[in-house]
């Protein structure tokens, strides 16, 4: 996706997120958008087709999403603006904004071997103390790390892996 599209997606997402005043509303709206995205996924090709007039597309929407008023209105706006192709990106962005509201930060924790549940919990705990947020971590395994772990969170990479330490040691000795 190019820069313009990313910027546009971010703006639509911010607008949709801005509709909700409270956290409960935001959660509900995000849920609604998730369901709507899932429902129209099958007919996405038809809805994006330039051959079909916008009025007819909206008829389809009314039919499919009559239980989801906010999402239906939002997707209608996207159809008018010819931005329906950005729906996936917008949804992802709405999720991030929701997580911001909830005080949740995503993290990717990579280790050399599979962690036990207790270890996972303590790693998440350590990160949430550092960033002052609830951490929702994805755990990955990369044997190349040899030992230790790396955590990517909030645009930062915390690297405590044995691989990096050995590499630094190599540089210190050969210098």
């Amino acid at each position, binding site marked *: 996706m190019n*820069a313009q599209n*990313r*910027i546009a997606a*971010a703006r639509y997402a911010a607008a949709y997120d801005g509709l909700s005043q409270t956290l409960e509303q935001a959660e509900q709206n995000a849920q609604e958008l998730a369901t709507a995205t899932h429902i129209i996924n099958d007919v996405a090709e038809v809805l994006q087709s330039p051959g079909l007039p916008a009025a007819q597309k909206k008829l389809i929407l009314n039919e499919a999403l009559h239980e989801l008023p906010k999402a239906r209105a939002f997707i209608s706006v996207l159809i008018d603006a010819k931005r329906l192709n950005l729906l996936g990106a917008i949804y992802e962005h709405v999720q991030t904004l929701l997580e911001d509201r909830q005080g949740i930060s995503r993290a990717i924790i990579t280790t050399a071997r599979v962690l036990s549940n207790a270890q996972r919990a303590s790693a998440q705990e350590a990160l949430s103390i550092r960033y002052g947020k609830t951490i929702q971590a994805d755990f990955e395994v990369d044997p190349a790390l040899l030992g230790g772990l790396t955590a*990517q969170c909030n*645009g*930062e*990479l*915390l*690297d*405590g892996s044995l691989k*990096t*330490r050995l590499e*630094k*040691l190599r540089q*210190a*000795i050969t210098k």
Partner: protein
Amino acid sequence: MAIRPEEITKIIKEKIEHFDTSLDVSEVGTVIQVGDGIARVHGLSNVKASELVDFGHGVKGMALNLEYDNVGCVLMGPDTLVHEGDTVKRTGEVISIPVGKGVIGRVVSPLGKPLDGKGEIAPEKNMPLDIVAPGIIDRQPVKQPLQTGIKAIDSMVPIGKGQRELIIGDRQTGKTAIAIDAIINQKNIPQEERCICIYVAVGQKQSTVAQVVKTLTDFGAMDYTVVVSATASDPASLLYIAPYAGCAIGEYFMWQGKDVLIVYDDLSKHAQAYREMSLLLRRPPGREAYPGDVFYLHSRLLERACKLSKENGGGSLTALPIIETQANDVSAYIPTNVISITDGQIYLESNLFLSGIKPAVNVGLSVSRVGGSAQRKTMRKVAGTLRIDLSQYQELAGFAQFGSELDKESQRQIARGKRMTELLKQNQYAPLKVGEEVLVLYAGTHGYLDEIEVTDVLRYEKELLAYMHAQKQDVLDGLNAAVELTPEVENTLKGALDEFKTVFKPA
């Protein structure tokens, strides 16, 4: 002394014991697009302009465009090693180059890596490439001459230490030759006044750079010269930083109180490399598709040429930028920019070159705005009327072509002009010492050549110099050392020329 193994072990042990095992924290981003030497990175939200970023695989980049949701970086290495989704780390540093005495006599890349296969270079210091030029208080006026050993230049467009003198002309007019001659001539100059020379090759063929290095080596000029090379096959980003790298190396020596001569060969290609980068970064194009800040690109580089004040050690950095014109058009964008930045220009013309006048300096259009005050007094006295004589001659020569009858005075001027033009011709790689230049030009401007044929002028010069070296070395030494053309010096000079007159056999 042999190295005892336990010593090494001990050192390594110490290093390991004191090794910092703390967590490695870095700000990261993700590559979202890469190609044409440019990468767009998502994240890195706190990165600063021109900060160095690490793409891994040994590839570094420079963050140039800080945009709404991404950072545009130029890569300092092959873009094939960087992939979409790769992690990019901030380094918190600006790009810098290792400098030190060890770099003299070497050929290095703009990142300071040796290219001549002579082993690692021990750095003394890291110098940032792009710094702000010394201010007014740090400087003093240009007042010492920088001898190029080329008669036409030392007499009519004198260059002072700390000056910026542009060498401009079409391809194949001898621009590089002038710069190389100026470097080679430093060998003729006593150690304490000699400049450390830096030759920055931007966007040239590898073969051309190899040729230059060989020439400099053959003439023994590599002993005090550094070659910074970013050739045509290197990425545009390296071509872009090459002049700044050369300048940083030069500044290191300048701040130690030394004199430095730096040649940027050439800045047209530098501007083109910057244009390539800018267009790929989607910056708006301006005139000739160059970006709007192409003037600043060159002005911030050439402003760094300077003569430091006594308090700062009195070092100097003299810049000889080279610009290649197309079809003698000096009014194109880059030539006019650089002309306006520099303290004068040496204008080389292809028709002069083709008519056998080498160096092909156009005397009328070449100027030196500050060098005059730096010129040696002996040279100034001898060359004082030279420029006027030559321009009067060129004017009259136009008339004379119509075959009209000319008065005696005009005929004399034409005769003198023809001989002076002939006298200013000079072979490549044959720079003269200042005393020799003064001697030869004195003979020309004081009528010693008027009786001999134009075709004999160069033979006269050659034989005169040989005669002086053989018989009158003391007079030459006196001229080399003389700061002013006192009556005594002038009398010995006249005496020697009169004596030579009896020896020289006209054809």
